[in-house]
């Protein structure tokens, strides 16, 4: 029994190590080659770099305007996620506590909307807010944030909806008896109790908004507003096959996310788990 269990565990380890290599090797490869020049990258992609030359990194930071690009992505993601969290929590709480016909239908419509592919909305979005109303020309960043709040709210309200139900009603009633208004009760009693769910929702939304490409590429037309994915796309077009510049650029794009993951991995994995179980 224990001998067969030991061999079983050995097989498990071998398979897991193989998976580990497959999942990690692209990152290792990028890292190794980020210090090499084109000649070395082409002739020996697997060799260790002969020197720790950060010159290509400096060049990439400069050419991709890294700090501005990073700031744009950060600002868009930050504001979108803050408003998604607050607005969705407000709506979900109100919808659960006031189950009127209107609120129930709104909830049903939002849940159903989750199966609409972005591609079915993309052309009218560009037509209405670009050609017709000119919002894309006048306030692209603001429009993008508003669109993210709109796209992110369906799933977020759906997740909050389940958790709001688990908050004991007595707590809210006690606050009302003490003379608190609805708004005070929500912000002082309900919202703090929803904090773990809010963390889940923030994480799920940061993951897709930070990496989103298609929508921002349609809305942000000026180079000074580009986000990391758009910049990466333009960079790849300009320096096609110039790997000594492209690899550091890819790493610079990936690094902020990996650093965030290093510190927040516990919350991120828990967030993904809770987001899926509902």
């Amino acid at each position, binding site marked *: 029994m224990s001998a067969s269990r030991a061999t079983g565990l050995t097989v498990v380890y071998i398979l897991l190590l193989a998976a580990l290599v497959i999942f990690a090797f692209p990152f290792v490869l990028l890292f190794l080659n980020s210090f090499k020049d084109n000649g070395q990258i082409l002739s020996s992609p697997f060799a260790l770099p002969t020197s720790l030359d950060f010159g290509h990194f400096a060049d990439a930071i400069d050419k991709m305007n890294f700090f501005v690009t990073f700031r744009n992505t950060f600002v868009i993601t930050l504001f979108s996620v803050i408003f998604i969290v607050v607005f969705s929590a407000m709506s979900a709480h109100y919808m659960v506590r006031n189950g009127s016909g209107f609120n129930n239908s709104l909830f049903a419509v939002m849940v159903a909307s989750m199966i609409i592919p972005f591609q079915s909305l993309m052309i009218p979005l560009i037509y209405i807010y670009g050609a017709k109303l000119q919002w894309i020309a006048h306030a692209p960043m603001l429009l993008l944030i508003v669109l993210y709040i709109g796209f992110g709210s369906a799933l977020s309200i759906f997740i909050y909806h389940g958790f709001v139900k688990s908050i004991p009603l007595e707590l809210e009633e006690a606050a009302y008896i003490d003379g608190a208004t*609805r708004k005070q009760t929500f912000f002082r009693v309900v919202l703090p109790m929803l904090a773990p769910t809010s963390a889940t929702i923030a994480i799920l939304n940061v993951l897709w908004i930070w990496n989103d490409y298609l929508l921002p590429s349609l809305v942000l037309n000026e180079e000074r507003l580009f986000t990391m994915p758009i910049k990466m796309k333009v960079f790849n077009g300009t320096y096609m096959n110039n790997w000594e510049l492209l690899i550091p650029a890819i790493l610079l794009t990936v690094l902020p996310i990996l650093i965030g993951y290093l510190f927040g991995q516990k919350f991120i994995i828990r967030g993904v*788990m809770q987001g899926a179980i509902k």
Partner: protein
Amino acid sequence: MREKNSLKRLGNQLFFTGPTLLTFAIAVLIPFVYGLYLTFMNMDTPTSPLSFAGLDNYSRAIHDAKFWDAMLLTIKFVVATIVLVNAIGFLLAYLVTSGVKQQNFFRVVLFTPNLIGGLVLGYIWQFIFVQTLPSIGEKLNIESLRLGWLGDEHLAFWAIVIVTVWQSAGYMMIIFIAGLISVPKDVLEASTIDGANAWQRLTRMTLPLMVPSFVVTVFLTLKTAFMVYDINFSLTGGGPYNSTEMVSMHVVQKAFTETNYGVGQAEAIVLFVIVAVVTGIQVYSSKKMEVEA
């Protein structure tokens, strides 16, 4: 709490649900309804006035051979990724939860590809397919690695599948782990005492109890696979010779490159109907497979 005064109730309704309703209308409701309207309109350029076209856009969409090529390829992609992502995701979850000490470490590393967007992943793997694999093939004399995968019509498709599986398997693994943890231990122990071996426990006990997890993971893979754009765009760009252009990319091309908004939107609506029908059938039929422990 019910507000006594109906004006106050309206005020609270607006305060709490107004912001969501407004942004949801701007992002989803208005474009969706207006998008349906656009499919019945002729539009030569984005700024020219609309004229009524009847069902013309739909008929042109239905006769667009490239659209159906892209749709068929997308369906092939959907089937391939659903099978591979779920099989590998489940296998990883099963391995990670089968008693190894470094469970958390494996979980964290295997999830990592998910943090990176499809666009950047495409560029990372372009380096692997264009530079690295041919160089391995050269050294070890493996013919199938030596030729660039992205230049071959069939291999380029499988390259997209591989990168997608590599990206999503870790995500599904996390969902499966959550499901596996909640499989009641006493049920498994009882079956062990009754003489069931590991394989029987897996196929007769664990898998049937995991159906709710599979409903979620299949739904997620289905939806994202139908909408695949970023990896398609950055890894192959639809090439070689449009052989890997999937439906999202085709719609983007139709609308923004050929500036044919009406036909592009009609094709996008056809895509929506297909996704809605397929996911509807999937959720409905798999709910029926769920069992109680």
